[in-house]
Every structure is written in structure tokens, then in C-alpha cells.
């Protein structure tokens, strides 16, 4: 199957609209499909995909995100997930069904400023996203340095089957916790963290370059820890 890739700007005609649901970041007039963003349109026989090159993070269900607690009340935490909406983590999710606002104190689990890895359970545009931490690998992040990256460049940081992230992790002896919302926590020895952040900044700058993996490899080998 051939995949045609074209560069598109907002308002550019992509192709005839395929049947079925509208692909993300596109819109339809009559039976023509147009782009809403600057990006790369991948046109397959029956499927069209538009990869945006910039843009804010719009939450999606089942996304793995890294967030910061910004507020708490008797029943939930408000979490900044680098999006246009604040996310909520209900206290019941942490304390279980027996949660009572009298016997439990939310401050014991998460304080304002704490960083957490969470997953988005529900979200639609009428309500703020709801988070959960009741899955392996989720919960409070105690160590590490949070770094922000443009959310549209996160796939580039991960690379094909995680290749880019693996290179950075092994060469800098760090661990990356990559949230789909563009927040990354780098854990490891200080010099490794510095180098990993350098690599992330390079990815942000040169996201379109084809040989980026080699470039990162060279950078990390040269300055390796």
C-alpha cells in the first residue's frame, strides 16, 4: 500500500473526503477534505491522517500524562496537565470507595506542587478531564526534573517503537517519564539529566530533520556520561 505524504497549511485541500469519521485536524466542505493545521498529511487508500507540527495539547481518553497539583479541595485535586483545561483527580480514586472527607486528608497523599503520572479516564469538551492513578506505573513522581516539550513533538522524542527514548535513556543513564501532554520527567544522575535535557531541546529545535536519531546519538556519544 502506498502512503502519500504532503505538507499542508491551514485551509489546504488534502483530498476527497473518505467515508467514515472525519480524521483529526481536518474539516470537510462537500466531499472535499481540508487541513486545519500546519502539518503532514498522510494519505492512504482509505485512510487519511494529519500530523500537526504545532499546537496545544488537547486531552484524549487513555492518554498517559504528567501533571502538577495546583489546588485541592475536600474531594478532589486539581491537576495542571499542560492543557487548556485543568484535570481533576477524585479523592476516591486514591483512597478507595471508603473515602470520607472527615477521616481522610487529601494533603497526606498529594500536596500542591507534587508531580504525578496519571491517565485520562474521561474527557469530552463539555467537562474537564478526569484522571486516575490506579494502574501500574501511575502515581506520584518523587524524583526527577520536569521538562516541557511541544506536545506535537512528543512522538518524535519517543521515536519508532521507542527507539529515540531508548537511546537517550541508555546513553545518559537516566529514565524518562514521557507524558503525552508534553511534560517529561527526567530521572537519574545530575550530569545525565543535564545531557538528556540538552537532547530534548535539540529534538524540539530540529523535529523535522530526518536523521535526528543519528544527530542525538552523536551528541550523546560525544558528551556521554
Amino acid at each position, binding site marked *: 500500500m502506498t502512503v502519500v*505524504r504532503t*505538507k499542508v*497549511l*491551514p*485551509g*489546504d*485541500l488534502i483530498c476527497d473526503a473518505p467515508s467514515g469519521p472525519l480524521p483529526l*485536524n481536518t*474539516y470537510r*466542505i462537500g466531499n472535499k477534505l*481540508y487541513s*486545519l*493545521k*500546519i502539518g*503532514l498529511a498522510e494519505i492512504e487508500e482509505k485512510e487519511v491522517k494529519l500530523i*500537526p*507540527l*504545532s*499546537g*496545544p495539547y*488537547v486531552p484524549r481518553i487513555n492518554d498517559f500524562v504528567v501533571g502538577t497539583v495546583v489546588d485541592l479541595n475536600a474531594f478532589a485535586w486539581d491537576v495542571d496537565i499542560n492543557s*487548556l*483545561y*485543568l484535570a481533576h483527580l477524585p479523592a476516591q480514586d486514591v483512597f478507595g470507595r471508603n473515602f470520607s472527607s472527615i477521616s481522610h486528608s487529601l494533603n497526606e497523599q498529594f500536596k500542591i506542587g507534587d508531580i504525578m503520572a496519571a491517565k485520562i479516564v474521561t474527557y469530552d*469538551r*463539555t467537562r474537564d478531564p478526569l484522571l486516575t492513578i490506579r494502574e501500574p506505573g501511575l502515581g506520584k513522581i518523587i524524583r526527577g526534573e520536569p521538562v516541557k516539550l511541544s506536545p*506535537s513533538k512528543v512522538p518524535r522524542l519517543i521515536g519508532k517503537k521507542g527507539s529515540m527514548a531508548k537511546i537517550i535513556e541508555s546513553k545518559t543513564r537516566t529514565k524518562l517519564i514521557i507524558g503525552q501532554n508534553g511534560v517529561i520527567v527526567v530521572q537519574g544522575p545530575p550530569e545525565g539529566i543535564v545531557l538528556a535535557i540538552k537532547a530534548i531541546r535539540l529534538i524540539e529545535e*530540529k523535529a*523535522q*530533520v*530526518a536523521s*535526528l536519531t543519528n544527530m542525538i546519538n552523536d551528541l550523546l556519544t560525544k558528551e556521554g556520561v
Partner: protein
Amino acid sequence: MSKLIDENGVRLDGRRFDELRPIKIEVGVVKNADGSAYIEFGKNKIVAAVYGPREAHPKHLSLPDRAIIRCRYHMSPFSTEERKPPQPTRREIEISLVLRRAMECAVFLEEYPRSIIDVYVEVLQSDGGSRCASITAVSAALADSGISMRDLIVGCAVGKADGQLILDLNDKEDKEGQCDMPVAYMPNLEKITLLQFDGAFTEDEFKKAIELAIMGNRKIYDILRKTLTERYFKTGDEK
């Protein structure tokens, strides 16, 4: 009053009737903004910055089904020949409004309900036609920020001087000419998002003026396209 067009059909700054001033556009000039652009449109120098979509404050401004746009067009005190007091004038408030309305046609507001998009336009140097240059800069900044847009918007004015239609008026032609009509246009959708008019055209002249404006806008669109393409696809690699 001096003549604005000489007997050879050449305007004061050496342009033909259908010629634009030199245009330069840069994208991503304000580091802290989500999207930004800088435009030089003849002697106009304008910076536009987009922040958001973000949570609307004060909250009562927000709408449940779509985002709102807040636009501020401002001319720096040093942007004009005589110092301009920094507080917003009637003209600036009006231009903020028309820019906002022009943008609202293009931005997919329904995608970001309950939020606000802040757009700031700062004119550093002005020379006639700054609202048209501003709308071009704003659309470049919006595209840079990655906000969903139906189309890019470009703007340019047409007018009449010494009884002849002219494209892209400068300050003097704007003030001393007989007519001034700024037009903002979405080239792919072929729709006009802003049209203001000051002076008098005959019906025939008006039709010709619109055609001239669209032709000018298409030229600006090509420049804008080139700028955005270079910025985002510079390496020529699609990976």
C-alpha cells in the same frame, strides 16, 4: 494638493497602480507566546502574538460551546510621525474589533469551548494599511500557535487616487486619496472576512476594486505560504 500619480501612471513611491509594497514576514519571534509573527509591509512594522487557548479569566466571559477571542491592537507611542499617547484611541478600539471579527471567521472556535484566545498586535511603525498588515500577521501567528483554522487570512487595501484605482495604499495615499477600502480574504475558501469602506466608488469601480484587492491578497498569500513552509518544512525532510 500634490498629485499622487504622475502622467506615466507611477505613484509617489515609484509603484504602479497594482503593485504591492515590499513585504517581509517572520514567524515565531516572541519566545514566550504560543504563536507569533512579525511583518514588514512597506514601512509598517508590526508584531502579533497569540496566547492560548487558555482558561478564560474572568470566568463569566467564557462560552460553553466555543472559545472566545480577545484582541488588542495597539500602536506604540513612537510608531507615528507625531508621538501618539499610549492609551487606546477610538481608532485602535475599532481595529481591535474588526480584527477579532475577521479572525472569528477563520478560527475553529468550537474546538476549544470554555477557553479564551488572546491576540496582541503591536504596531511599531505605521505607514497606512496597518490593519491589513495586522490581519496577515495575526493569521501567521495563529497558524504558528497550531490553533485550528479553516484558512489563512491575508489583507490588503484598495483605493482611489487621482481618479484611478490603486492597490495597497500608503499613508499619504490613504489620507489624500479619494477612497480607501481594506479587504481581508481567505484565499482557499474565497471568502472575504473584513471589508471596510471610506469614500465613494461607482458600482463598476467597486467591482474592479474587489478584483484588484483579491489579486493583491493572492500575492500576499504566496509570501505568507512561503514563510510558513520555510519555517516548518525547512529541511525538506518529511520525517
